[in-house]
């Protein structure tokens, strides 16, 4: 049963992140997950200073607010002409620094850092159950991530065409009357929601990895957005399963193994992809040369 809950949680995180990751990779903003993982620090510090408790719900609330502020600021700067990578860098370093200053000013003698109070551990999810009227409803993380996945599927599903056009050709999208800014903010809001709830359940590295790696691998394997999303989710799920198997054999960190498995799958895609793979390109180049000679 333990294995089942861990795999289900991992699968939900992988699916949420793999779907959103596709849009982020296309918009060249994949590092946004890493950015949010740092920039929520002032959120949890302020939440702790206001409530005096390190309860996970309070921490999650503080982190969510800061997550939204982060993506809002990044989007705002980017739309105002700052390069995407630079605006991510500016926002998250500045917010993280504010958090560090707050800790050093007010909370020298309290152990408060992200690892300790916000980031969850996937090995522990099945013990962190949600209780409703005294009955055990299963792991809290599964409910929270399941809900997040539903919201993501609903929003992306409803406005798929708009999201697609905004990702590939925002100018054209604006020209035909789609509120591009609104959809950018909507996507960023989803990213913030997915990452913060995943951090709380499974920790940072798994979320950041799953947001970037499966989508990047899928990007190498296809040129169609629809196919890319499905391949990305498939790679995410495969690395969840593979990684868990490896972690059982090695007795190692589960999240670490899952991300390593995703990285191995990415390398395979990089080498063997029929269209963009290293091998395919080499072969094509050789046959071209032989034909010209």
């Amino acid at each position, binding site marked *: 049963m*333990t294995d089942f809950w861990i795999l289900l949680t991992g699968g939900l995180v992988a699916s949420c992140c793999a779907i959103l990751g596709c849009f982020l990779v296309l918009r060249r903003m994949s590092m946004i997950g890493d950015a949010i993982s740092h920039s929520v620090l002032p959120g949890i510090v302020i939440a702790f200073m206001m409530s005096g408790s390190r309860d996970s719900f309070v921490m999650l609330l503080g982190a969510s607010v800061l997550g939204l502020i982060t993506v809002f600021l990044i989007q705002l700067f980017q739309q105002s002409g700052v390069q995407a990578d630079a605006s991510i860098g500016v926002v998250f370093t500045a917010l993280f620094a504010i958090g560090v200053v707050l800790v050093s000013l007010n909370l020298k003698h309290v152990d408060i850092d992200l690892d300790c109070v916000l980031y969850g551990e996937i090995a522990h999810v099945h013990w962190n159950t949600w209780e409703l009227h005294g009955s055990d409803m299963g792991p809290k993380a599964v409910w929270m991530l399941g809900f997040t996945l539903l919201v993501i599927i609903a929003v992306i599903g409803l406005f798929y065409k708009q999201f697609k056009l905004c990702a590939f050709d925002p100018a054209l999208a604006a020209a035909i009357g789609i509120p591009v800014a609104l959809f950018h903010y909507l996507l960023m809001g989803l990213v913030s929601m997915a990452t913060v709830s995943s951090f709380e359940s499974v920790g940072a590295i798994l979320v950041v990895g799953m947001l970037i790696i499966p989508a990047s691998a899928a990007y190498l394997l296809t040129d169609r957005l629809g196919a890319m999303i499905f391949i990305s989710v498939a790679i995410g799920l495969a690395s969840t399963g593979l990684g868990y198997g490896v*972690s059982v054999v090695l007795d190692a960190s589960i999240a670490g193994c899952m991300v390593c498995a995703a990285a191995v799958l990415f390398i395979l895609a990089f080498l063997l992809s029929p269209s963009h793979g290293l091998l395919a390109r080499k072969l094509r180049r050789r046959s071209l040369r032989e034909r010209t000679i």
Partner: protein
Amino acid sequence: MRLKTNSAIRRWIMAMLFLTAVMLFVTACGSNSGNDFTSGEGKLKVTATIGMIADVVNNIGGDHVEAIGLMGPGVDPHLYKASQGDIKKLDQADVIFYNGLHLEGKMAEMLEKLGKKKTTVAVSSRLEESALRSDPSGAGAHDPHIWFDVRNWISAAEVIRDTLVEKDPANADNYKKRAADYLVKLEELDRYTKEQIASIPEASRVLVTAHDAFGYFGDAYGIKVMGLQGMSTASEYGTKDVTTLRDYLVDNKIKAVFVESSVPKKSIEAVIEGAKQMGHDVAIGGELFSDAMGKRGTEEGTYIGMVQHNVDTIVHALK
């Protein structure tokens, strides 16, 4: 043309060999056996989060208990990462002991919930509010490093004794007897620490370390404690912290500062260097065990040995 393809293929083979080697290396590093519950029926299986607790459980439980710690020697509890095998250690345990007071971070929240299904006990649970050091900002958080005051650890040992007695009444007498012996040793350790620290001249009774873990030690045994870093080993120290500490060392002619087994030495070395430039030589008094004990099987790998090592190191360097 032929030659070129060959060299390309060779490059691929080299890359693949390299990857395989890396994999094998990782696998070799990963196999840490001898850390699981080995015995079958009959023994009470106990999992403790930190080594200090596992050590007390072993002393009180003796042959009737098999105790393992999640965090090994030299592991900073703030930075502990669960491995897949840790699930089994928690799942199979009859009793789980943890420190509490947020030492284990988010994990403690999970352990409290798990308490509905199996016995999970915070060894700090019987300490009075007045015995705890709280944050000066009044934010309601307590210093979790309670084991530096041996009196606190006596209370922890009593919690462990009573839990074992309750879980395994058949061996209750044995636990009580072993606990009584162990508590005598702890009382002795407490007395020893008091005497030894009191033998340092009063003006030199200052303990300077990298991170702020020795607060209970200072309160209990009358030695002023100064840390460079805050409570969390992940928090950053400011330049002002370095200069304040440096000036204090120079002004009070403190002879030695101490490094900790689970915290990098770099930060404290900056202070020593600074004091040197102001014409005051500060020595590194030795390595103290703070958040984790020494290697298994050595004297410092037990709670009593670790405290003794710390006390002797401090007295030797400051006297």
